[in-house]
């Protein structure tokens, strides 16, 4: 019961510390745009598609979008004031015939973000679309909904001739024009925090679950050896359940979010 209480209150406590003292406990991310482009193009190459070329105007558009999300405090493809992603792309001076956008937040590495996009059919469609031949990325650290996070904006485009303007409505996003003196180059977000909040909580969770499972296993062995009869729940049930939680922590929980 104390452990349950500890974890519950600990979650709130760490959330507050992370929000108010991001330099101590925060999102530890190591994401470079070069790596994002490389990984994206590796995925395209696997499908026999030509690589996307980095376009500075699309990078500006992506940065404007990221700025706008932080300034207006939203996590969506369209801004609260109704701007679509195409607004930012046009604002950056990119005359597209095709355009698209993927968003991600809360990831610690470029690999995780690209993997997440590839696991989602809609985002994967953008990454592997033959309609796009250029791409721009923005990776920006800031505060969204009161919590520190790392945003990745991926803007796709094609300025070539096409039968019609075909915008990928699934991936629409928006930004508002904000001061963007620094948006032209966003090389990367690197680790800038003392403790990575995700790795800290993940490790504590793993330790707690391991201790519980080990205790339950030892209990089974002792009870069996000493032939003790008692009316309690089945330890094996609990080991299965806690084992599931352990697997989820190892593979699924805390992987960031994409839209």
């Amino acid at each position, binding site marked *: 019961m104390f452990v349950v209480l500890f974890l519950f209150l600990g979650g709130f406590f760490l959330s507050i510390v992370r929000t108010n003292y991001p330099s101590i406990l925060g999102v530890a991310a190591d994401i470079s745009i070069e790596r994002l482009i490389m990984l994206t193009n590796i995925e395209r190459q696997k499908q026999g598609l030509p690589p996307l070329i980095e376009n500075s105007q699309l990078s500006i558009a992506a940065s404007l979008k990221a700025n706008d999300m932080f300034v207006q405090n939203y996590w969506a493809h369209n801004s609260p004031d109704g701007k679509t992603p195409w607004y930012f792309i046009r604002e950056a001076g990119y005359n597209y015939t095709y355009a698209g956008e993927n968003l991600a937040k809360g990831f610690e590495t470029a690999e995780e973000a690209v993997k997440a996009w590839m696991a989602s059919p809609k985002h994967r469609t953008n990454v592997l679309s033959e309609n796009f031949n250029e791409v721009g990325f923005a990776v920006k650290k800031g505060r969204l909904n009161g*919590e520190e996070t790392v945003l990745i904006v991926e803007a796709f485009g094609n300025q070539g001739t096409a039968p019609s303007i075909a915008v990928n409505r699934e991936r629409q996003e928006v930004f508002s024009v904000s001061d963007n003196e620094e948006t032209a180059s966003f090389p990367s977000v690197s680790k800038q925090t003392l403790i990575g909040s*995700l790795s800290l909580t993940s490790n*504590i969770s793993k330790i707690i679950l391991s201790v*519980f499972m080990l205790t339950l296993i030892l209990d089974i062995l002792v009870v069996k050896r000493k032939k003790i009869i008692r*009316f309690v729940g089945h330890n094996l049930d609990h080991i*299965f359940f806690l084992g599931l939680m352990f697997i989820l922590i190892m593979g699924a929980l805390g*992987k960031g979010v994409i839209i």
Partner: protein
Amino acid sequence: MSTEGKKHTGYYIGLLAILGFGLFMTFGFSYGARWQMFFIFLTAFFYIIWGILHHLIDHDLTLKIVIEYILIGSLGITVAFFLLKGGLF
């Protein structure tokens, strides 16, 4: 297989179905943390219900056992909450 053995196999098929559901849905929503939290809550809830029913059918259900399953289920939920709230949201 004895009747007792068949009964236990049935129980554990049920448990594995619940845990499999949790595993599948949580991995399926691995990039939507709030959905993950929801499915973990659901899995823990079904686990508690399963545990209580298991002991009820076996006629050895006590308040202590009910509390035990609730606490283990709560531990699973709070571990996920701790990780996601403390580390991500």
